[in-house]
């Protein structure tokens, strides 16, 4: 704040000195411009993160004031032995492993197909993207109806053909996969749009040239389109892995982590522990572990991709 005041009092004749101080002053200006962002960043990201780490060393309770008694590493040692937490972590990882491939491959396929359509393309773009704008609460209501046994949309169909439907939401071996299906339908539009944007960046000339060289449509797709979309695919995969590791809403709203906790993800375990068991300190330790896991996964993936890209 002192910089503009200083410049205002500088004598106009001291041109040389003004040129010298211009550089740092310019940096201050840039700093000022990003300040609003930095304030929010510190306030809502760095601050809570530090607070989380602090809480994880205390027996903080939701219903008692203050931090509570000092726990040292007790929360972390308890956490490493807590099989409920690790089973929830496994559900999150399983969900990521199962949901990421279809959410990377299917939108790619649909984007390539839709990009070929000459007339009425807008309709398909809209159709694929529409579910993505719905809030998770609406998704939960729609799919609870679809999965309802006997008279739900799918259940009714199974009834019609005289087959008992699998317990979409009641069978512990099926429920998590039912949620994967919901998630694919719900979020496919986002990845689809990213691919479509990537497709439109590929120069038409390349297709003309390859056609002149006698490449078939199939060869064009395999040898031209998909390699040219490499960067987009990387981006989509990283974003998808991170999004899948953060799964919570749809599982909580449709199943509440059931049946018998077979679908409870890590974030729901953290939520349950902090807000139903009132153990905020313990839950903070768990959320810090999850944060580290997501960070490591993202870094490993990015490192792999960098190496791959520099190798090309």
């Amino acid at each position, binding site marked *: 704040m002192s910089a503009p005041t200083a410049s205002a009092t500088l004598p106009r004749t001291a041109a040389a000195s003004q040129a010298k101080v211009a550089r740092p002053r310019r940096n201050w200006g840039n700093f000022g411009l990003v*300040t609003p962002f930095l304030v929010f960043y510190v306030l809502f990201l760095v601050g809570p993160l530090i607070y989380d780490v602090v809480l994880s060393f205390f027996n903080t309770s939701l219903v008692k004031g203050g931090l509570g008694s000092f726990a040292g590493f007790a929360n972390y040692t308890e956490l490493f032995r807590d099989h409920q937490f690790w089973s929830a972590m496994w559900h999150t990882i399983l969900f990521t492993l199962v949901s990421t491939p279809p959410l990377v491959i299917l939108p790619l396929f649909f984007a390539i197909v839709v990009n070929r359509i000459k007339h009425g393309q807008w309709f398909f773009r809209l159709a694929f993207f529409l579910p993505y704008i719905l809030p998770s609460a609406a998704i939960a209501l729609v799919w609870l109806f679809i999965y309802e046994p006997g008279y739900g949309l799918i259940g009714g169909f199974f009834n019609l053909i005289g087959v008992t439907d699998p317990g979409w939401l009641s069978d512990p071996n099926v429920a998590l996969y039912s949620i994967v299906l919901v998630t694919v339908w719900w979020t496919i539009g986002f990845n689809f749009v990213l691919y479509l944007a990537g497709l439109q960046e590929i120069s038409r000339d390349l297709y003309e040239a390859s056609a002149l060289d006698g490449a078939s449509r199939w060869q064009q797709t395999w040898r031209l389109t998909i390699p040219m979309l490499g960067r987009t695919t990387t981006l989509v995969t990283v974003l998808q892995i991170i999004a899948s590791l953060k799964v919570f809403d749809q599982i909580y709203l449709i199943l509440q982590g*059931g049946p018998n906790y077979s679908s409870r993800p890590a974030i729901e375990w953290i939520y349950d522990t902090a807000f139903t068991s009132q153990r905020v300190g313990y839950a903070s330790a768990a959320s810090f572990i999850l944060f580290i896991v997501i960070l490591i996964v993202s870094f490993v993936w990015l490192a792999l991709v960098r190496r791959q890209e520099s190798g090309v």
Partner: protein
Amino acid sequence: MGNKARMAHNDVRSGLSRRGFLTGAAALGAGLVTAGCAGTYDVGSGITGSSGGDNQSTLVYWNLLTGGDGTHMVAMEDTYRKAHPNIDLQSTILAWGAPYYTKLSLAIRSGSPPDVAIMHLSRIHQYGPPGMLTPISLDLLAQHGMEPKDFTPLAFSKAHYNGQLLCIPLDTHPFVQYYNTKVCKKAGLLDSSGTLPPIKSADAMLDALRKLKKIGATPVICDTINDPATPWRLFYSLYSQAGGQVLADNGKDIVLNEALATKVLTFIHQLATEGLMSSNVDAGGGTAVFQAGDAGLYWEGEWNVTVFQAVNLPFSMQPFPALFGKAAAQADSHTFILPKRTTADPEKTSTALTMIRTLLGQSLTWAEGGHIPAWLPVRDSAAYKKLKPQSNYQEVASYAAYDPPAWYSGSGSDMENYLGEPLASLMLGAASPQATYDQMIGSLHTLSKEPVPV
């Protein structure tokens, strides 16, 4: 080219003061943002609906009543508003269970609680010990037209913690048995007056359900999906009938009796494996199946009564049948609490108690939603006795089985969730009675050994 570049360069140079201005503006903007944070209390209270100021004419009331209950409560609030036009009653409805209780705890902790709120009686063991509720003296209660003898004795005695009255009961809401009169008549279960005679043993229940199955009806519905509370209510009703206890010493001791529990679990398992109970539904789905008129019995809390009345379903209700000995049914009570404030405000407390008394006076409206009024002047009135089928099961208020006291028990609590989930698996036929018992006892031991957060 050189000329142009130089000119551009000059522009930048002469723009330095402009940049300076921008710097200042940006910094000022940031300052405003941070300054705004000092005012978050006002922003926060705007969002949460609690009163930030000390305007005496407002009364902030939080509850978790939705659906039919919500409609009845709004009608009762409107009556209060008409009688007290000088009080601005601000009512906030939040979602049942953890979402509500989280916000209530945090609001009390942060020193800006609502003036009055609804709390389940079974939650007194979480809110009582850390001193989050304002004790209400009997003198103060009497000054506002309420005496201990005006309330259901069981609910009123449970409203105390450490000898202090911490909440004022509004109702008792038990787990009950709905039955479709048309379907049950077809199965030959009704007596000459068209009512279902009390079913008095597990075998008699199996008989009745098999008769219902024979005529092609869904014998009984009891939901499990996304709803661990209902399986817990079913188990705890039956287990209490058998005389079982789950916890002792405020939750530090586990006294779940293996023999009694196994008897109950085996019965539930038989219902599932014999195809006598339909559990593959969530709460909404269960209601819809019974509403469609294809089911004989429906085990659920009494709060769905208005749903079925609205569609003119031929049905009635009765206390949950005593299949394992004495009469017992899992139940809870909605109560009014005065959350603890940082500084006492006798005038506000008085306004709140008057409001509570006014709402209690309209217990008949409340009873239409299915709940048994805790306010005896209404419960003993002729008008309530005429209210059918709601008054059929009013006796349950005297033998209601409340969740066992512990810091981890009560409505929407860890205990209900951790026991309800394995019970749901049992009801779906996916787990054996032994596996269910093992998981239940394991979870209880884990819960009882956790550091006490209250």
